[in-house]
């Protein structure tokens, strides 16, 4: 950064008048995007922790259950290695695990006063939260890429190649928006780190196990199949799996008139976008309420 020559630093205490300019909306987004990326790099612990559990799942599940599950794979997924079957599910698990930490950043900001400091600045408030969300989304995308690379190293194959991999990242990011919104809502409501982490993590395992993530639904009890039909994780995993295989894999819903990959992707993306809009809307209402009343 350059220093203008005309500054009058007469004494250490001199206060140079500053011509104030107001930022553009995108400028405000960028400022906050940079801040949250900086904080993520400063805090690699969070990055690592949200990767560790999915990696353990990936390795343990494929080694322990691989042989058993491969025998149950039928239809479009028949004959696949369990690594290939599981990789999209782990990608979605990473999206969840990373997104639930979003609220923690918000709780910290409320606790250390930065939330109010940002509110009293002239920055556009929507841009502030957009910048933070984009930083988290970038991080989640990078984490999904890491999981995909690891899966391939373990023997999975992304049948659709690079385009499929980009598609999986896109589905993961789309799904993470709902969870990030949920985590931020918990953060505003509880104003407490532990409650936010526990609240969001509590949901992670039931949602993952009661879906098409780990084992084909046909082999599971009827009540799980019924629950899986309503479980957004099923749509996220099936969407990611369709991207990975280039095939129609959805079993919980049958939209007429659609064939091939679209038969899976259209309902999956619709459900994920709908959920993101609903949970995102709730988070926005809660956040703007918190912004307009004093944060003690």
């Amino acid at each position, binding site marked *: 950064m350059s220093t203008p020559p005309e500054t009058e630093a007469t004494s250490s205490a001199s206060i140079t008048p500053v011509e*104030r300019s107001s930022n553009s909306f995108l400028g405000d987004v960028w400022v906050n995007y940079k*801040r949250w990326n900086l904080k993520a790099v400063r805090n690699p612990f969070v990055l690592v922790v949200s990767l560790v559990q999915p990696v353990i799942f990936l390795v343990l599940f494929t080694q322990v259950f691989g042989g058993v599950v491969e025998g149950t794979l039928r239809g479009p997924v028949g004959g696949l290695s369990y690594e290939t079957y599981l990789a999209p599910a782990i990608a979605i698990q990473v999206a969840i695990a990373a997104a639930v930490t979003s609220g923690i950043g918000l709780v910290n900001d409320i606790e250390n006063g930065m939330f109010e400091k940002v509110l009293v600045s002239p920055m556009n408030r929507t841009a502030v939260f957009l910048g933070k969300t984009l930083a988290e989304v970038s991080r989640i995308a990078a984490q999904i890429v890491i999981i995909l690379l690891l899966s391939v190293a373990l023997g999975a194959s992304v049948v659709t190649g690079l385009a499929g991999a980009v598609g999986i990242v896109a589905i993961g990011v789309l799904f993470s928006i709902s969870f990030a919104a949920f985590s931020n809502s918990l953060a505003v409501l509880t104003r407490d780190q532990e409650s936010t982490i526990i609240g969001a993590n509590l949901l992670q395992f039931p949602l993952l196990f009661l879906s098409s993530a780990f084992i084909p639904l046909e082999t599971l009890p009827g009540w799980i199949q019924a629950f899986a039909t309503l479980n957004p994780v099923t749509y996220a995993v099936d969407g990611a799996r369709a991207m990975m295989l280039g095939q129609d894999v959805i079993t919980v819903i049958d939209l007429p008139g659609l064939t091939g990959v679209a038969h899976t992707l259209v309902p999956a993306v619709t459900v994920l976008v709908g959920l993101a809009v609903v949970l995102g809307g709730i988070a926005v209402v809660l956040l703007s309420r918190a912004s*307009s009343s004093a944060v003690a």
Partner: protein
Amino acid sequence: MSPARDRADGTMTQLAVAAEGVELTYADGTRAVAGVDLEVPRGEFFGFLGPNGAGKTTTIKTMASLLSPTAGQLEINGFDVTESPRKVRQSIGYMAQETSVDPEMTAEENLRFACEAYGVPRGERQTRIDELLDLVDLAEVADKRSEGFSGGMMKRLDAATALVHAPPLVFLDEPTTGLDPKARNRLWAYFRELNAAGTTVFLTTQYLEEADQLCERLSVIVGGRIVATGSPEELKREVGGEILDIELSADQAARDRAIAVVEESTLFEPDATIEETPTGISVTSRQARERGPDLLVALRDAGHEVVGFNVRAPTLDDVFLAITGEELAAGPAAAGEAAVEAEQ
């Protein structure tokens, strides 16, 4: 810095704060600000003095556009807080009561973020950051994460981040609460320099000494209302004279008899006030100094043992007592005595 800045519509305003009937009632019905009328001219060092829960913080947050007034008119630097909150935010610095810094970022990064948030032009940022780090004596720890800073250092960094855009008006909400005397004195020096450079400073405090030392003018606020406004000297004059404190080695009954002696002596004007204190009695009178010796003699003749005495000018604590009839929660203690937590 010019004393008045151009308003958006081209006219000028000489008032940093113009409040008329400002009220703030929270959703739960609590009326934290109950009709505040106030004018603070540009360049003034102004203070809000009041006990905990008097409405100081709520009022200052309303002025900083963090809360919307539920009634009344409020203009900051000529901008209406409800209609143009963003213009208000551009033209003020605000330092919250709770120290606000990002502990994961270094001192310099905290300042850089503030520069960016306030739109300080890219080419001026580094100069500005260096200048402010010097101002608050943090240049040596510029690259250290602020999580390791002492309470006083964090407070100074917080103050610096509120100044990045050289705002013509700065709100400081109890800036020295929780600081040790040394850290407090350093902050006071910065605030004085800031004001000397033309910045309007609006400070809240529950420390009388702080208001007395720093403020050109102040308002006493109790129960969300302003009960008195004036310079510290004007307010002290309202107390009505000087104060003669007499220390007696005696019990309650003896203090009552001593008060009777003062009343019967007719040494002081009729509106002089006589009060019991924990250690004796005190007399507030315009003739406290001249007639004091006579009173001491009268007390001795009446059989009282005077252990000590002192004639003093009224403090703002006396002002507060005279206006509200109650002591400030913190008592007459200096700011630093209540603070132990921060080490610097």
